[in-house]
């Protein structure tokens, strides 16, 4: 048996090795696709095994690698928290790697894919490295590796202007975030050793140090800002709906499914582990941003008609839900309720795992649609369920999961989050008792809107008739892509039906972080019933809900088919309306119209109806033209002024550029004199 850390380490080396191999195999593109993605599937699987074992056994293994800068070796550590996130990343990258064999093979018919393969491997390696890093230096190096690799992946189809723009935006936000994280680590390591030595850069030193409240707050706020930028928390989400849709779909699945989770990992690591002791209002900050992201994310998602953009906004929403769990956990922890804190943390982490899988599944499904129909705009699609039955069924599983409906996995974590909300009466502060349940209402709103959004997404894409002008030749995707999606769909079901098993496994993470498990109570009534806190408080049995519903369906079906009449297929009835055309179907825009009107003040909407004056008759209007533009309000509120200000500033700074050597010498001279004055 290999040590889990060794196993994870060798997975990373395998991936790095594969990146080198891809350079050598540049000529043999078809072979490269199969070999490289098979290798990354193996690497991901072994990382998953390592993660599962660490969490299950609750072990912690550490290592020091003497590479890197002299006297600053890299520290590695695999504890249950890291193990959990390794598992999350590992499972999805395993599934996506299988899917990619089919997906990238199709791309390779049109363009060279060596670059895609290299950066794919580096991207995966970067994510694994971030999670096992145990010092600030290695963490940041891995973080940048991950960011840079994903930047090049977003830029893969770089001939389009919007791709370059999206990648640039992503890079800018990622770097602003990374800067904040760097500063946060700087504050913590500085306080850990004083500013003389360098050894405060290890996480161990930060763990042991006790930070003064002000500096701890500064470190937390910087870290939260930095990680929130990566996670796409509103209002720092602006890059996410730009960058995710333009990347190849397997990359979108990874970025949305697991790259955002590394930021969640960072938040949990810094607050619970490195800083350790915190006041309650840190938790409320996380909770409030979580709620805002959840509600706004799903509202913006509803307004999209680009399938991948819609999914990208849903990532904002789900990150919000995860942060709600983590924020509640922080609040409970700061008031010293370890059991409640661990329940909320489990809710957040469970949703992390669930979101990784169903969002991966949905992006893979969107990729399959995109690949088959060459269309991203939902308004042009429809009726794909007849042409791509597998993809449709699997996408439906993902939709039901993300909409938080039983018996699939999204429901379990939302249910746990609701339970965490309902435990707020234990808190001592009366104001918080009042305010926190209102958050539960917002979560309910989010879940209901998500259901509406996925009725729209699935209904418009797969159901009805093809809406575009000419129906393309669409056929079902190959077995590699299908099997990737099938595994993800089965995982969605398994995680939804057997939550007790999963929670029993991941219970070691809250034990490590907040010192309490919920497994003793959650599994008290066997694996069938999930009963957090106490059985008379709340209980949910995934298997029974699934089985009873299924058996009623089967019984009803069998009973009705004993003497079933034949089914006659006829043209549409539609209340007797005669000439039904596909253009009369509800479009995605039309579907979302009531919600757009009700929540209109959240959007920047410009709606125009143009009537063509040349009407054939005065009672019959001529051609009408309808244009609708919906924009993110934050762009106008926050980013536009920021961009303008930075342009203004750079123009001002630009004036310093005189082009004459004497002027530059004067600048240096003045600088030296000022410094001398200050450092006298």
């Amino acid at each position: 048996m290999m040590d889990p850390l060794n196993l994870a380490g060798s997975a990373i080396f395998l991936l790095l090795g594969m990146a080198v191999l891809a350079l050598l195999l540049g000529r043999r593109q078809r072979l490269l696709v199969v070999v490289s993605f098979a290798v990354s599937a193996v690497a991901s699987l072994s990382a998953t095994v390592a993660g599962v074992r660490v969490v299950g056994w609750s072990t912690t293994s550490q290592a020091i690698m003497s590479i890197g800068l002299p006297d600053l070796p890299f520290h590695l550590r695999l504890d249950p928290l890291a193990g959990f996130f390794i598992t999350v990343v590992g499972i999805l990258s395993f599934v996506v790697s299988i899917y990619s064999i089919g997906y990238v093979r199709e791309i390779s018919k049109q363009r060279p894919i060596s670059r895609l393969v290299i950066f794919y491997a580096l991207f995966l390696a970067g994510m694994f490295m971030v999670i096992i890093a145990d010092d600030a230096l290695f963490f940041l190096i891995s973080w940048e590796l991950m960011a840079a690799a994903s930047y090049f992946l977003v830029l893969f189809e770089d001939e389009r202007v919007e791709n370059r723009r999206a990648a640039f935006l992503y890079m800018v936000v990622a770097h602003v975030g990374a800067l904040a994280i760097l500063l946060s680590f700087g504050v913590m390591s500085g306080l850990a050793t004083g500013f003389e030595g360098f050894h405060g850069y290890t996480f161990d030193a930060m763990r042991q140090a006790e930070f003064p409240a002000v500096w701890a707050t500064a470190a937390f706020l910087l870290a939260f800002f930095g990680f929130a930028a990566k996670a796409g928390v509103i209002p720092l989400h602006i890059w996410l709906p730009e960058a995710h849709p333009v990347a190849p779909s397997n990359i979108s699945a990874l970025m949305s499914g697991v790259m955002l989770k590394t930021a969640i990992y960072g938040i949990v690591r810094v607050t619970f582990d490195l800083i350790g002791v915190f006041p309650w209002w840190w938790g409320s900050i996380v909770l409030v941003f979580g709620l805002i992201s959840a509600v706004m994310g799903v509202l913006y998602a509803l307004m999209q008609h680009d399938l991948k953009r819609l999914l990208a906004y849903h990532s904002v929403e789900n990150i919000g839900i995860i942060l709600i769990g983590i924020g509640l956990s922080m609040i409970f922890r700061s008031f010293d309720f370890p059991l409640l804190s661990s329940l909320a943390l489990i809710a957040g982490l469970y949703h992390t795992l669930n979101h990784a899988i169903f969002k991966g599944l949905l992006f893979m499904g969107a990729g399959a649609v995109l690949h088959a129909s060459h269309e991203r705009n939902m308004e042009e699609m429809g009726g794909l369920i007849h042409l791509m039955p597998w993809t449709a069924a699997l996408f439906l599983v993902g939709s039901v999961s993300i909409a938080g409906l039983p018996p699939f996995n999204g429901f379990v974590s939302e249910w746990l989050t609701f339970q965490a909300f309902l435990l707020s009466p234990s808190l001592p502060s009366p104001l918080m008792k009042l305010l926190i349940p209102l958050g539960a209402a917002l979560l309910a709103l989010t879940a209901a809107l998500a259901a509406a959004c996925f009725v729209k997404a699935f209904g418009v894409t797969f159901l009805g008739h093809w809406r575009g002008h000419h129906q393309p030749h669409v056929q079902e995707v190959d077995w590699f892509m299908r099997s990737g999606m099938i595994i993800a769909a089965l995982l969605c079901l398994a995680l939804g039906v057997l939550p007790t098993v999963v929670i029993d496994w991941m219970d070691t993470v809250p034990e490590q972080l907040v010192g309490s498990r919920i497994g003793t109570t959650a599994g008290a009534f066997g694996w069938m019933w999930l009963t957090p806190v106490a059985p008379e408080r709340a209980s949910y049995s995934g298997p029974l809900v699934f089985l009873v519903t299924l058996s009623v369906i089967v019984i009803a079906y069998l009973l009705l088919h004993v003497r079933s009449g034949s089914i006659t297929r006829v043209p549409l009835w539609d209340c007797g309306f005669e000439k039904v055309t596909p253009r009369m179907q509800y479009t995605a825009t039309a579907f979302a119209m009531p919600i757009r009107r009700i929540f209109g003040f959240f959007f920047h909407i410009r709606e125009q109806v143009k009537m063509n004056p040349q009407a054939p008759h005065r009672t019959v209007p001529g051609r009408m033209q309808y244009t609708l533009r919906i924009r993110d309000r934050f762009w106008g509120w926050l980013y536009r002024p920021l961009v303008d200000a930075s342009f203004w500033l750079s123009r001002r700074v630009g004036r310093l550029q005189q082009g004459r050597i004497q002027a530059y010498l004067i600048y240096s001279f003045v600088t030296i004199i000022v410094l001398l004055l200050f450092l006298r």
Partner: protein
Amino acid sequence: MNLYPFMTEILQIMIVLGISPAFVGWVRMLKCWSQGRTSAGLFQPYRDIRKLFAKNVVLAENASWVFRFTPYLVFGTTVLAGGIIPMLSVDLPLSATADVIVLVALFAIARFFTALAGMDIGTAFGGMGSSREMTIASLAEPAMLMAIFTLSLACRSTSLSQIVTVIFSGQIQLRPYLAFAFLAFVLISLAETGRIPVDNPATHLELTMVHEAMILEYSGRHLALIEWAGMMKLMLFMALGAVLFFPWGIDVTATAAGAVRAFLFLLLKLGASGVVLVLIETGLAKMRLFRLTEFLGSAFLLATLGMLAYYILD
């Protein structure tokens, strides 16, 4: 192993299946009387369902499996919901499988698939119905959960059996938050079960249909299942309201006599709730879709006030 709870469970599911058409018949009868019409009798819904089951299915050409699967799923989840709500006894085996949040989610999954079925055929009506239904649901669901959370906070549980037991035991008497939560629940029930003023179950007018628009293309046994599930849903909401806010007569002793008494009380309460429903429906007019924001907003407001009242006034 004690078999009694299982017997009650099966009995209750049978009752839900068997009585719900009569309940709908009762509501229609009352409505006819209130409007001075002759009613078709208490048993007309049974005849309707039987007729539909006997008929052949006529299916649109491009209906996919989603369309054919939906009636069974809607029926299945509704039956499960019927097993969860403690109507006869608080000691039901299925009651532990799902708490009140799961109950709401079960109705949500039925709605999700009905909306998909509405879009599957590709008619204008179907999409319209789905869009409206999902809009209404997304406004009603927070209010519903808020109303229920008020009870859950007071009873320190989300398990329906536990809530009913606590309220029944008289620990909670005349409380403002209960009244608020009840009012909110009434408004939401009207929205969730598609009654006036939110939706008109008796219309096929294109501007006013919501639920009917989605199931327009169904026929034969599919339609029968959906109609039956709709009847059960109406009865379940009424029973839920009756059992949560007025749990008198429910069986906490686990005896046969108790179960019979609980059944009689249930009939009484359902009859009364039918009267209330008809009074509301006759008194109100169907609302415009965009007035519903105010209607459901008021429901949310009431539910929230209930929660605030729980903390402020107690």
